[in-house]
């Protein structure tokens, strides 16, 4: 038996034929403890600002994979009196990284069947999406892939650099008496902003 084209029948990490990718992504992410919302290009900055405000974040880092949208988001956050830095500028400064309340990143891809976002060392860096208690990720809907198999086929062409990482919801542990605790070494809050449009516009 080697018919991998039927992988979706066996693996819950694939999308069934005709299944809606966006709906599945949002459902799985929520199941994993994350949240998401769909916005148009005009609502993006407002959504990010509102999320950061709700999280009580002040010191924010933005990663390079936000592309041309980065300066625009940075400007809006500065006007709203947030302390904003580029992650690449502070990544080597341990104290600065430790002090971050939130990071805002883009992504290389997102996996619909598992609710995962995919970041790369070249864009969000290894730890850009990981170090702060709150992570806001902007996902252009065109970056959604069906399942793990599609992602792995695409992976060599994503330009992830020395690390590609899948992240699904917040960091978690169940080590103490099997009690689920959210937010161990990675973020406690993961909010995905699904952008119906492109970041570089």
């Amino acid at each position, binding site marked *: 038996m*080697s018919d991998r084209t039927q992988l979706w029948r066996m693996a819950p990490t694939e999308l069934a034929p005709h299944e809606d990718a966006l709906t599945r992504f949002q459902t799985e992410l929520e199941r994993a403890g994350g949240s998401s919302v769909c916005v148009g290009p005009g609502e993006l900055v407002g959504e990010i600002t509102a999320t950061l405000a709700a999280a009580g974040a002040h010191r924010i880092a933005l990663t390079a994979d936000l592309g041309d949208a980065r300066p625009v988001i940075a400007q809006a956050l500065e006007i709203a009196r947030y302390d904003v830095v580029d992650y690449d500028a502070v990544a080597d400064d341990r104290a600065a990284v430790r002090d971050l309340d939130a990071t805002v990143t883009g992504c290389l891809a997102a996996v619909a069947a598992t609710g995962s976002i995919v970041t790369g060392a070249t864009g969000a860096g290894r730890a850009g999406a990981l170090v702060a208690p709150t992570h806001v990720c902007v996902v252009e809907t065109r970056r959604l892939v069906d399942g793990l198999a599609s992602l792995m086929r695409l992976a060599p062409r994503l330009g992830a650099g020395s690390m590609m990482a899948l992240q699904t919801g917040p960091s978690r542990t169940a080590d*103490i008496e099997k009690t689920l605790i959210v937010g161990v070494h990675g973020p406690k809050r993961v909010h995905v902003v699904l952008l119906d449009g492109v970041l570089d516009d």
Partner: protein
Amino acid sequence: MSEDPLTSSTFAERARVQLAKPFLREAVPRATDIAVRDLRERFAGHDYDGLRELGREIRARTMADLEDALATLTDALVANGIHVHHAADAAAAREHIRRICRESDAARVVKVKSMATEEIALNPALVADGLEVTETDLGEYVVQLDGDRPSHIIAPIIHKTRAEVRETLSRVAGRELPDDASELTDFARERLRDAFMDADVGISGANFGVAETGTIVLVTNEGNGRMCTSMPRIHIALMGIERVIPTLEDLSVMLPLITGAGTGQLITSYVSMLSGPRGEGEPDGPEAMHVVLLDNGRRALLGTEYQEVLHCIRCGACQNVCPVYRQVGGHAYGWVYGGPIGAVLTPLFLGTEAGGELPQASSLCGACDDICPVKIPLHDLLLQLRRTRVDDGAAPWRERLAAELWAWAWSSPRRYRVVTRVGGEVVRVMAAAGLMSSLGPLGRWARGRTLPTPARRPFHSRGERDV
């Protein structure tokens, strides 16, 4: 741990100690039941069996030509700028890692939970070199603080109560921490954050090594795997040579198997795919990455009847369903791997001298075979190990004598009839007199059980009229 529990005690002795802990016998079945329930839930409507078959096929194909897969992996790792080291045994692996730490002037090491590093007893060696070593998986951190051992492949402190964890962490804090899992975790998070930021070297295992792309894959939930491979200057991954898989496509089959069988999750919170040190223009990551390929008894199993044990991806599912493990926990097995997989691996890796009795610690119910994500026939392997032990003359003489007498008595119809007749009579009389517990080894078995009194005439000797 100064002396080796495997050689200084028997399984029965260790099991008795564990069985006397009421929490263990309650907590282990509860925790493992949750994992099995979640696995079934996640695969509802999907063909888990079909996926297991794909997984088995990938593992079998790879093991059939392991050297070829390893050569491809090594070439790809090197092409990615990763230093590759080969370790024939535990001592060689420790030596490689110690040397890398020495040559990079390291003072502090952070670790991702890794059974391979447990297997080579890495931490004591690094500590002896004057390095400060910190385990960063919450459970492993507590295990390390207590000088304990992990008791489950993926849930290292399954045997500990929250109160015990609180006591341990309070000792480190120097104050009474609240009796709340969330606050205990917060405390550990802050402590370990310092460790990540200050560390020179991050040491991990490897869940998989993808040959075609030269990628080390780490599967974690807490995020410590990502931190350990992002912050320190050096990353060292210790990988058992059997953890190689040929392609990224294979990874899309193996990932849902390991996370499903391991924790019942669709996917873990983090999956890191590491293909080299920090590259040009990347904002963070280690300056150098090393992979140590660990043999330590694995190659010797190739081409033997035990080859299939190399298919294991260390998910812990066989422990979750094993009726023996669920009662006695991981420590009773005496080494790093417990449960059915431990009962097979321990004698194969350490020799029958040390772990030879472990295959006896099984009811051969086959639950492990049924759940194993890559369909390892664990109970066949356990039986084969038992057979080998008898052939080697390592079984106790009383056990051998009993088996031989039994074989002699039951291999002729006449002898069989005489023995069952006489035996039945003896048991009947003794049971009636309440003397079963004085029957030697049989008595120990009869304690806590009510034996039905045998019929006056065995079924075998009744005629049609009687039936």
